[in-house]
């Protein structure tokens, strides 16, 4: 997506690259790079939810963190409300971070076990000097009500809560600074089915009430498609397809997307047992040495000579449907 016009998006990413160096030997010399995210461009419009799916190790979490400037990018630009935030520092960066928050995957590891729930939720308010005196308690109570937690539970500690409730605590904390944009990194993948539905409902409700914009990262396509307006599919550091949720299911164009979709079983025996299944063989190649040409060609059932030689660009095939494949 070369022509991402950063003005029409709340968040825009252009040619983003993030490499993690690998050091080895006695001299700790750099021997290689893990190419976690490699020239990725996309935009998120105000008020929409953009889903980001891919298998583990495809770079989706890294991408989310780069967008929030939790990682410094290797190359490329990230725009927030049209402003380039890639090189912001100090106070300016802190200012922008109020508007961008993160909800973590693991509700067990992401909450400090030695802080009370009230303090966990209220900490961003203190850090950003957003409240004074009595207001603090009121705000924390209000945040807890927003995520449907009992405000009287604020003196308790995280271990006293179940996985679903902890995820609510994480959400309340993310909402404390009244952000406009939230990166949800696998917020429901560790939860049980019935609890997962509760959290999905809550996220949808909050988005409507507060006018939020989400980047929703997950590996579960059904969940991503359910919650997202548009979905981006990632493979080995690249976005291979972006389109709206319904189109993705009815008309997937990239062979990887097709395989991914067919691998997701549908919880209805009548429907699922009629579907054609594409079983991908082998494993995802190492991001240390990604295959030349199209990165998917080693596992693609349609691969041709050109796929081994040149890397396909992400191109618009009509009605906002972007695909990176030579054969489309």
């Amino acid at each position, binding site marked *: 997506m070369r022509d991402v016009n950063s003005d029409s998006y709340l968040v825009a990413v252009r040619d983003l690259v993030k490499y993690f160096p690998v050091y080895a030997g006695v001299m700790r010399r750099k021997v290689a790079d893990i190419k976690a995210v490699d020239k990725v461009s996309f935009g998120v419009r105000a008020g929409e939810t953009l889903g980001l799916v891919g298998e583990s190790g495809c770079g989706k979490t890294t991408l989310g963190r780069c967008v929030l400037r939790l990682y410094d990018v290797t190359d490329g630009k990230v725009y927030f409300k049209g402003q380039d935030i890639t090189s912001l520092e100090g106070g300016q960066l802190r200012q922008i971070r109020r508007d961008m928050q993160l909800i973590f995957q693991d509700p067990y590891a992401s909450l400090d076990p030695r802080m009370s729930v009230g303090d966990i939720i209220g900490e961003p308010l203190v850090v950003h000097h957003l409240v004074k005196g009595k207001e603090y308690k009121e705000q924390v109570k209000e945040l807890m009500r927003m995520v449907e937690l009992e405000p009287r539970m604020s003196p308790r500690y995280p271990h006293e809560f179940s996985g679903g409730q902890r995820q609510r605590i994480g959400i309340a904390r993310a909402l404390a600074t009244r952000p406009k944009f939230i990166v949800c990194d696998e917020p429901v993948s560790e939860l049980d089915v019935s609890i997962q539905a509760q959290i999905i409902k809550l996220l949808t409700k909050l988005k409507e009430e507060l006018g939020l914009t989400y980047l929703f990262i997950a590996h579960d396509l059904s969940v991503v498609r359910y919650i997202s307006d548009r979905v981006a599919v990632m493979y080995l550091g690249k976005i291979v397809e972006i389109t709206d*949720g*319904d189109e993705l299911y009815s008309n997937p164009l990239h062979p990887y997307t097709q395989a991914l979709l067919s*691998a997701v079983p549908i919880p209805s025996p*009548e429907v699922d047992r009629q579907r054609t299944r594409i079983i991908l063989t082998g*494993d995802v190649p190492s991001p240390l040495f990604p295959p030349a040409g199209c990165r998917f060609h080693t*596992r693609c059932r349609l691969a041709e000579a050109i796929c081994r030689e040149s890397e396909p660009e992400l191109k618009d095939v009509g009605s906002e449907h972007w695909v990176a494949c030579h054969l489309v």
Partner: protein
Amino acid sequence: MGKVTRMKSVCEGSDGRSSSERVDTLLEVRDLRTYFYVREGELRAVDGLWYTVKKGEFVALVGESACGKSVSALSIMRLIPYPPGIIVGGEIIFAGKDLLKLSEEEMRSIRGNRIAMVFQEPMTSLNPVLTVGRQIAESLELHRGLGRQSALEEAVKLLKQVDIPAAERRVNDYPYQFSGGMQQRIMVAMALSCSPALLIADEPTTSVDVTVQAQLMEMVNNLRAEFGTAVVLITHNLGVVARFADHVNVMYAGRMVESGPTEVIYTQPRHPYTGGLIASVPRLDLPRDRSLHVIPGLPPDLCRLPRNICAFAARCRFVSKKCTEERPELEQVGAKHYVACFRHDEMEMLMGCET
């Protein structure tokens, strides 16, 4: 890596089995009760569980965390750690014998041989200091009396069967040298090494990606057809169940709440928990604006749960007075279809009204 992609259409002929049910029964769990004695008191992880598995059948055991599904599987294998856990009652009849009455030695000859298990975390179930060949060969030497060399050759064959590339070389590798999906395939190879009559797979795909999950489940299903092994799949993934299972058992708070053929469970669930669970999963094939059903509240605390009420009553939309005064038992409501709910007769109407 091969570029070959295997296209498979659905091939499930589920109910073509002979009618002599008694002879066909491989495993019968009767009124199994496994309790744990913890600081908070008596935790009834499994409290009166009944189900049967026929030869070659694919049975799914569905439920959320802490509903007792894993504990019931470990009970079958007699691997409940004591203390704090203990099987306080019931019978587990496997091929005509009550496993709970066997000596530890007799049990060892069944474990890994007649009944095999695949665990959730491949990295923690494989021994990190032994080569995978050694680990697979171990049970072959033990149960099939093979010599060291021939056991290793057999291990190579098994690795090939689960699609490990360059099996001859990789048989000498250690677990950490394999990816998560490959480790799980090695677990499957190990489990099937003695052609068991029953394979218990405890959430085998929870920690792997969907494409790997598809590979793995497809493989288990093919091997099942090849060896005639019955499979008990423990999972909370309702999609995988819909795709592969012949029969579904739904557990809640240590008890079976519904049991029936897969199609029936998905199309006409008679327990509000089953219905709620199915409706709370986002589906790829349905329009996005379909609203998700939400089961309110949390699963009950098994230490405090009173025995004489329906465990689901506190979260149930259709709760009646009787549900909080008595505990419903499993009742037959159709062919091979059992439900533990006082209001199962009205369920079709009640759930119909909601949607």
